[in-house]
Structure formats: structure tokens, C-alpha cells
């Protein structure tokens, strides 16, 4: 029989997390700190709006670009949070999670061979999606000494005459890094100067601590060269509803809508009704969850300090990214050993790019009680490792 598989697809490596997942599932009483989604249930008033939509029989397709009231609410939300104006009629597309927006956004922009700059460590889907869309990935290895921010120098070094898009994944999964206004202004200057487009994945925009999120699209001259991607998963704890959106220049949204229309039709209708409620009345819930994440974040940072585990202070998302280089193991070895010996699962930094080597992603989308137990186990583990190392000398 012929090989019916696409060469291109076979080239893609499966997600590094999978292997790990299989061990954790088998293991009873393991504590997982490996989850990339909120631990809160979707707030009840939002779920109820979904139920209500079912009861009213809102079970049909919506328009391709999404319910008009939802696009209007998205537009007003971005206006009030970032002071950017997007026309709900032709500059906003409602998608199946932020993930779909990343995929079709890249497909709408890229020609074969166009270079896509991807700062890493970052979310796992940029590189494969860009590759599938014909892009040539140029990876920037972000550095802990820069707090995993993208520096102007790093960007300039990566730019060639084939560069078309920069993916800007902040607040960042897995590092928790954020980019502040002055950081973005420097980046924007280069972007405009070199005539490059930006895909800004701002899915964690509501989860920043002590500092407010700034979108690069809010910087002068950037709105027309930015595709802003966001969604409901992280802010409103709505991961399973699969709902996100993209905002950008009309020409790009128009092309994306074509792909969306043929591949997806429309985002889930029930989720769209629930999302209208989230944007209208969900601010208190977001504030409550943010406050709770922030308490856990402070708790972890303090515990790492007590253990003497090096970790820069992250101001976004719900991850911390401690450095484990002192133990002389790869991230994967460390994570596997931690899981087998102390039954704590954390994701090796390398799952998010080679530059994640020497780091561990620890999620704090867990109750303080759980985190407390996990940190005790982690402390045990590294105390043991340090003792072994001393003996070896």
C-alpha cells in the first residue's frame, strides 16, 4: 500500500507534553502542576446564560464572523481596556479559541518561504501552525537575564529581508513574563521601520499582577500592522467553551474569515451567547480570580526563595518558571525524576522550545493547599539532590 500521509505533517514533532501526560495519568496520588488552564469553574452567571441559550433554542449557526452583539461587546471591551477602536463589522472575527485565530491568522498572512519570528519559550502551537502555512520559522531564544522579555537587539538580529511576521506571546506561557509599554515602544519602532507585521497573542491579558497589560496595537502606528488575538479561556475560566477572537486590519480579517468560513463555519453558538454575558457582567469574577492567582504567585515565589531555587519574578499568566540548572540534569530528566520520586508533575521547559532547557514550568492554577503540599515535595526532592551532589564531591 502507498503511504497516504502528508510529508509535511509527518515532519511535525508531536507535542512534548504527551509522553509526560501518559505517566501522570497512570500514577495515583500524584499532584500535577502541569495544567495550562484555570482551576476555577466558569462563573455561574455565564454558565447559566449558556443554559438559557439552549432553552431558547439558540442551537443554529451564527454568522461566520460571530454574533453581532458579541463582536460589539468585544469592541467595547478592547476600547475600555486598551483604548483601541476596532469596528465590530469588519475588524473582529470570533474564532474557536485563540488557537484557531493563530492558525488562520498565519495562513492569511504567509506565503511560502516568508520568515516568521517566534520568541521562545512560548506556547507550543506557533511554530507548527506557521510551518503548515508555509512559513520559515526563525526562533529567538529569550533569556532569563532579560526576564524573558523580547529585547530590541534580539529582534533586530533575527530580522532578514524575508521577515514578514513577528509573533508576540505576552503575557507569556510558560515563563509568566510580560512586556511593558516602554519595552513595546522599542519593539514597535523596529517593526514599523522594517515594515513587519505582528501577531500578538494576548490570551493572558487579564492575568497580570501589579502591572496592567498593554497591547502593542495601542502604540501609535501599530494598529494597522497588528493582529490582536485574545479569548475567553483564561480570563473567564472558559477553556472548554472554545471561544476566542482576532482583531485587526479589515483586509486580514476578511481573508481569515474566508478560511474560517470554509473550515469552521462559525464558533460554537452557545459559547457565543455565554461570552456576551461574560463581557457584560464578568469583571468582578475576573478581579476575584486575578487576586487569587496573585496570592498563589506570591506564595510560590516565596517558597522558591526559601528553597534557594532561582526564579525570576513573573508578572503575568499563571506560571512560574524556576531554573534548575544547578542540578546538572536536563529539564526532562529533572521533571521525570521529580514525578517518579516525589509524585509532582511539572512540565519540562523544553516543551516550549529549546531555550526552555534548564527550566520547569509550574502552573499555579491550583489551590494554595495543593501548592503547599507540592512545594514540600519539591523541597524534599531538591534537598536530596543537593545532598547527593555534595557526596559526589
Amino acid at each position, binding site marked *: 500500500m502507498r503511504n497516504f500521509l502528508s510529508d509535511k505533517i509527518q515532519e511535525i514533532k508531536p*507535542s512534548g*507534553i504527551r509522553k*509526560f*501526560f501518559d505517566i*501522570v*495519568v497512570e500514577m495515583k496520588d*500524584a499532584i*500535577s502542576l*502541569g*495544567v*495550562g*488552564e484555570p*482551576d476555577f469553574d466558569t462563573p455561574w452567571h455565564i454558565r447559566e446564560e449558556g443554559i438559557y441559550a439552549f432553552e431558547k433554542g439558540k442551537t443554529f449557526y451564527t454568522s461566520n464572523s460571530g454574533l453581532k452583539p458579541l463582536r460589539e461587546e468585544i469592541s467595547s471591551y478592547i476600547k475600555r481596556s486598551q483604548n483601541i477602536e476596532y469596528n465590530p463589522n469588519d475588524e473582529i472575527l470570533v474564532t474557536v479559541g485563540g488557537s484557531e485565530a493563530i492558525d488562520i491568522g498565519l495562513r492569511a498572512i504567509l506565503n511560502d518561504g516568508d520568515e516568521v519570528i517566534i520568541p521562545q519559550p512560548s*506556547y*507550543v*502551537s506557533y511554530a507548527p501552525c506557521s510551518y503548515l502555512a508555509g512559513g520559515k520559522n526563525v526562533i529567538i531564544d529569550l533569556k532569563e537575564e532579560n526576564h524573558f522579555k523580547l529585547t530590541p537587539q534580539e529582534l533586530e538580529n533575527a530580522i532578514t529581508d524575508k521577515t514578514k511576521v513577528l509573533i508576540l506571546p505576552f503575557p507569556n*506561557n510558560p515563563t509568566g513574563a510580560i512586556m511593558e509599554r516602554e519595552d513595546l515602544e522599542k519593539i514597535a519602532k523596529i517593526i514599523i521601520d522594517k515594515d513587519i507585521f505582528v501577531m500578538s497573542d494576548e490570551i493572558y491579558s487579564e492575568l497580570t499582577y501589579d502591572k496592567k497589560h498593554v497591547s502593542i496595537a495601542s502604540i501609535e502606528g501599530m494598529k494597522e500592522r497588528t493582529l490582536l488575538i485574545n479569548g475567553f479561556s483564561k480570563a473567564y475560566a472558559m477553556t472548554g467553551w472554545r471561544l476566542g477572537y482576532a482583531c485587526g486590519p479589515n483586509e486580514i480579517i476578511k481573508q481569515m474569515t474566508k478560511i474560517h468560513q470554509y473550515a469552521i463555519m462559525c464558533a460554537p453558538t452557545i459559547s457565543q451567547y455565554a461570552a456576551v454575558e461574560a463581557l457584560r457582567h464578568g469583571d468582578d469574577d475576573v478581579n476575584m480570580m486575578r*487576586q487569587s492567582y496573585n*496570592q*498563589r504567585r*506570591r*506564595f510560590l515565589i*516565596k517558597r522558591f526563595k526559601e528553597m534557594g531555587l532561582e526564579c525570576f519574578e513573573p508578572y503575568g499568566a499563571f506560571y512560574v518558571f524556576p531554573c534548575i540548572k544547578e542540578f546538572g540534569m536536563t529539564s526532562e530528566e529533572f521533571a521525570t525524576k521529580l514525578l517518579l520520586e516525589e509524585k509532582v*508533575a511539572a*512540565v519540562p521547559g523544553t*516543551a*516550549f522550545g529549546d531555550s526552555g532547557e534548564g527550566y520547569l514550568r509550574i502552573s499555579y492554577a491550583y489551590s*494554595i493547599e495543593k501548592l503547599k503540599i507540592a512545594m514540600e515535595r519539591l523541597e524534599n526532592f531538591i534537598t536530596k539532590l543537593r545532598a547527593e551532589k555534595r557526596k559526589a564531591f
Partner: protein
Amino acid sequence: MREELLSIIEKNSRIGINELATMLGKEEIEVANEIAKLEEERIICGYHTLIDWEKTSIEKVTALIEVRVTPQRGQGFDKIAQRIYNYPEVKSVYLISGGFDLLVTLEEKTLKDIAAFVSYKLSTLESILSTGTHFILKKYKDHGTILDKQDEDSREVVTP
């Protein structure tokens, strides 16, 4: 810090000062002082435990009693409320808007005790016009806590 502190200990009053300070990003001494102040100002009025007595061998009956009263000149409802809340078996007393005036929660060992309280103690107070007693059959949720809820993490164990 005040409101955030209160919202944490409202859910878990057993949390240690050390942990509380960490979660709030403050020094322990600041947190301890703030708690002392809150106690002094009677903003924190007590540290109680939420117990589902139904799961124990102790028999308890709880009743909600609607009470209509004639308010007294110069004292409004306060005097009569005090007469009622001084009974140790009375767990709470609220002044209520609407069809009646006071809502009284009463906890006793048996139904008979409740009946005795209502007919001999409560109804006989002057200025009480009428009472309506409702027995609690089952508590689903109390103090914001769902009593039978099992906390189960239904997420996949590792996700990107």
C-alpha cells in the same frame, strides 16, 4: 490590604500569619497588627467552624422563625431584638424588610424544645404580634459553602 485579608480569612480563618503575609505580599507584623485592629473594631467578630451536624450523632433541630412585633417608641426594634438574642439557643436575629420584622434562627435538640421556646418564651414577650415557624429539613449550602460538594479536579492532568 484590609479587604483582601478579610476575603481570605472569611474562607479560611485557620490560615497562619506567615502564609497570609506571603499571599498578601506584606510583612507578618503588618498583617498581625491589621488583624488585631480588625478585631478591636469588631469588624472581625469571631472565628467559627462550619460543621455539618447532620453527619454526626448529635441530634439538632433548626428552625427559622418569622416574628412580627410592635416597635417601641425611642427604641425601634432594638430592645425587642435584644430580648430575643439574649437566649443562647437563638443563633441569629435579623431585622427584615417585608411582611414581617425579625427573622430568628433557633437551634434546639428536639422539635418539642422548639415548640416550647416559641410558645412559652417567644410568643409571650410583650410587643410580639405573631410568629411563624419553619423547620429546616436539609442544609444544602451554608456560609457560601456547598456542604456535600466533593472537590474534584476534572481537568486533564497535563496541558500546554
